């Protein structure tokens, strides 16, 4: 009965409102009962209640109804917030999320809500502000019970417009009664009507009958308004929109709409909404309606209504949902354009050197303007693929809170730069590593309150998560003011775990000792908890981030806390690369993996057993000849060009024929037909239209790393 589009809008809104509730609950927990937070939650719960009822999800509607009640009483002051209440509300929120998941998967709701509803009610009793106020509040709550709602609504002031004729469709041509009673246009409306007619709009007076047994009258009205506003503009309604929004109407209501659709279309649209019993439509022309102010004082009311639903962000008109694949296709086309522009540039160069006249200058101008436009186009499309990092960040505060509770710690979690935008592919990847790091911070970093007081620190620990643009990259910083990492402890742990011998551990510099956190199987927590401390974290974190060409750095001092800095590319589609040649072909090395480049004399290459190595500043580096690695022809010059690649803490030198230089490249996949080709991570298209392969530096370093160990052993 609902289209996919409607369902996805429902879910989007639901997710957003749940997030609002979650955020504000956290605020409430921190700052007591701020009236703003209470209002926000009340409004969000109200919206969910309405929309889930519209969609027919009764449990969700019932549960949010309970939540709404509580917040209604909180804002009236007949309840006060206590910890138990917040905890129970969080539980209720979890139940709502569970329901949401269930609905998303199976379109049914089987999760039992009786338990949580009961505990909510129980909690409410313990939160009564005062016994007297409590009774009043209770009565108010009872009054709101859904069963009573239908009868509760005060008779609409214009009830006369809607004689109880629903079901019996009045003869379409006969009744002009609706006009007499319902539509009386003010001067302003009259002129609006004229204007609309000029612009090709029709005005219709639409009377909609609603089943009197309807439980969620407000939601129906809301939905009808929503639907109609998609095809036109609602100018007024009888009764006023405010009353409709509150469900205060009898067996139906009327609206005046300007639209380009025909009457039949409108009728069908409205009939697609459940519990609509009949629809009557009359076209209205300027001058036909009485120019006296009508009973439904509504121009202002309609504006207010619109403002209220504009409150719930719903910029249907301003935003369009686009398949990411389409954006990718666009990106590809722009890539083509960039390539052609580069070709044009070269051509212009030739042209200029050959003729060097005004004509060449004109061409140069055109070409450079084309370049600017192409660059902007590329940038804009990149931006279209970006999402604010809030998509990931928003689910973290709740996690930190739960963790801290569980661990008996007090944490002040601060987020900055939520609005920073990242390519959606990057966003998908950073969630897990961030959760890992945060867990570590709460679990290992922040001390228990007593310990913090003993150390002279503030009782509550602080964790700061910040995202920002730094030098064309995204930098995510996660800083805590906890214990920090102690090199001495790291060395001891490594020996205890049998990862290193005592001598080897003693030889490590402090920095190297701290780097041990990236060793698989290393954990510094004294006792393994179910939170973190399984020692699977940090090496995986680093791996995940390096996979998307990012890097992780950290800074830590014992007692002063730890700061992790994650640097990420803005997008995965374009990277900076070092271009080299091998034989006739061009290869690209992602710059994130390039440590340095060297130009050596052949004599500087040494041999350790069967392996070639070079010595760079006292360190032995294994050498790999790219030509051997790829089994390709090589065309070496007099000097040996070496690209030093690094991934993790391994390094390797790669011999190539010649270095071309740095360049921005657009990454293309090799396609499913070829699948994964070892040593390659993709391809890119060069300025001359030929294809260059992108070297998978990580796999080369991995392969070389084995040799590195051998080289050490031999040396």
């Amino acid at each position, binding site marked *: 009965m609902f289209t996919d589009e409607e369902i996805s809008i429902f879910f989007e809104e639901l997710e957003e409102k749940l997030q609002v509730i979650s955020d504000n609950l956290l605020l409430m927990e921190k700052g007591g009962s701020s009236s703003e937070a209470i209002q926000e939650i009340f409004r969000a719960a109200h919206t969910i209640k309405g929309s889930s009822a519209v969609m027919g999800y009764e449990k969700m509607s019932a549960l949010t109804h309970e939540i709404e009640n509580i917040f209604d009483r909180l804002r009236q002051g007949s309840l006060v917030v206590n910890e138990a209440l917040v905890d129970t509300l969080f539980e209720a929120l979890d139940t709502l999320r569970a329901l949401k998941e269930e609905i998303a998967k199976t379109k049914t709701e089987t999760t039992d809500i009786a338990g949580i509803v009961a505990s909510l009610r129980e909690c409410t009793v313990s939160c009564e502000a005062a016994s007297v106020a409590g009774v009043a509040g209770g009565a108010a709550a009872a009054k709101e019970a859904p069963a009573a709602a239908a009868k509760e609504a005060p008779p609409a002031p214009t009830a006369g417009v809607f004689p109880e004729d629903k079901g019996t469709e009045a003869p379409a041509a006969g009744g002009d009664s609706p006009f007499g009673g319902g539509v009386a246009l003010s001067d302003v409306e009259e002129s609006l009507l004229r204007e609309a007619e000029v612009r090709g709009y029709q005005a219709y007076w639409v009377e909609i009958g609603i089943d009197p047994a309807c439980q969620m009258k407000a939601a129906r009205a809301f939905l009808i308004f929503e639907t109609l506003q998609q095809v036109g503009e609602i100018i007024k309604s009888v009764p006023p929109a405010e009353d409709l929004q509150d469900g205060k109407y009898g067996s139906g209501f009327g609206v005046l709409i300007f639209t380009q659709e025909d009457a039949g279309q409108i009728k069908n649209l409205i009939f697609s909404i459940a519990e609509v019993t009949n629809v009557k439509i009359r076209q209205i022309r300027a001058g036909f309606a009485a120019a006296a102010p009508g009973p439904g004082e509504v121009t202002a009311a309609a504006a207010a209504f619109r403002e209220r639903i504009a409150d719930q962000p719903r910029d249907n008109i301003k935003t369009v949902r686009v398949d990411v694949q389409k954006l990718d296709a666009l990106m590809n086309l722009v890539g*083509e354009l960039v390539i052609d522009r580069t070709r044009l540039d070269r051509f212009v160069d030739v042209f200029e050197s050959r003729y060097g006249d005004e004509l060449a200058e004109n061409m140069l101008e055109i070409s450079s303007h084309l370049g600017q436009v192409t660059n902007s186009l590329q940038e804009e499309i990149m931006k279209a693929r970006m999402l604010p990092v809030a998509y990931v960040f928003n689910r973290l505060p709740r996690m930190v809170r739960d963790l801290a509770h569980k661990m008996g710690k007090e944490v002040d979690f601060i987020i900055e730069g939520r609005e920073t935008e990242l390519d959606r592919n990057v966003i998908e990847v950073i969630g897990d590593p961030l959760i890992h790091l945060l867990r570590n911070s709460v679990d290992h970093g922040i001390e228990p309150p007593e310990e913090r007081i003993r150390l002279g620190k503030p009782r509550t620990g602080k964790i700061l998560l910040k995202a920002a643009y730094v030098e064309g990259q995204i930098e995510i910083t996660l800083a805590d003011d906890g214990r920090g990492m102690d090199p001495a402890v790291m060395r001891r742990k490594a020996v205890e775990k049998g990862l290193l011998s005592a001598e080897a551990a003693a030889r490590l510099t402090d920095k190297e000792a701290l780097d041990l956190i990236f060793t698989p199987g290393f954990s510094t927590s004294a006792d393994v908890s179910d939170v973190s401390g399984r020692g699977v974290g940090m090496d995986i974190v680093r791996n995940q981030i390096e996979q998307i060409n990012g890097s992780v750095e950290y800074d830590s001092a014992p007692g002063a806390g730890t700061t992790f800095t994650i640097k990420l590319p803005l997008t995965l589609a374009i990277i900076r690369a070092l271009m080299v040649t091998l034989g006739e072909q061009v290869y690209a090395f992602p710059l994130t993996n390039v440590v340095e480049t060297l130009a050596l004399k052949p004599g500087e290459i040494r041999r350790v057993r069967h392996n070639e190595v070079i010595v760079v500043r006292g360190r032995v580096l294994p050498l790999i000849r790219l030509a051997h690695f790829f089994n390709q022809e090589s065309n070496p010059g007099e000097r040996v060009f070496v690209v030093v690649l690094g991934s993790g803490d391994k390094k390797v030198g790669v011999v190539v024929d010649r270095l071309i230089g740095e360049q921005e490249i657009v990454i*293309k996949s*090799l396609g499913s*037909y070829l699948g994964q*080709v070892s040593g*390659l991570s993709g391809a890119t298209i060069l300025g001359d239209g030929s294809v260059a392969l992108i070297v998978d530096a990580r796999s080369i370093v991995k392969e070389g790393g084995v040799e590195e160990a051998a080289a050490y052993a031999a040396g």
Partner: protein
Amino acid sequence: MKKTAGQTMQVVVFELAGQTYGVDISNVLEIIRPETVTQVPGSPDFIEGVIKLRGQVIPVIDLAKRFGLARPGRVSEHSKIIIVEAGGTTVGMVVDGVSEVLRFSGGQIKPPPEIVTSRATAYLQGIVLIDERLIILLDAHRILYEREKEALEEAAAAAGV
């Protein structure tokens, strides 16, 4: 993809190692002149390399090598690359020359004789005899997807060694 007897079929006809082949026009995206092909190290030998096509990187296969046919000489000036698409995968096939587009009814397609067994038969859709000419119809789907099967078999064989 199977055509019933009554349907008309349009086929792109091309030459390869002295034989005439055809492929359903609905699988053909375009026909281009060979351009610089970038070799891909580590790929099977029938993969000629990759080329750029409308901003995408597309693998090019050498049909002669693919079918295990002997082919005199290298890519000539008559050579063409036929870009075929099936099931979302796009590849280019190097052929010796493209002659025409033929139209005939599905009923004219005969199943391949069973005695003829070469690697190419695995990709056959059938054989058509038009004006004394024998045209071998290729099934683009199989050309593109047999590859996966083979890769698996190769991997299994390699593991066994």
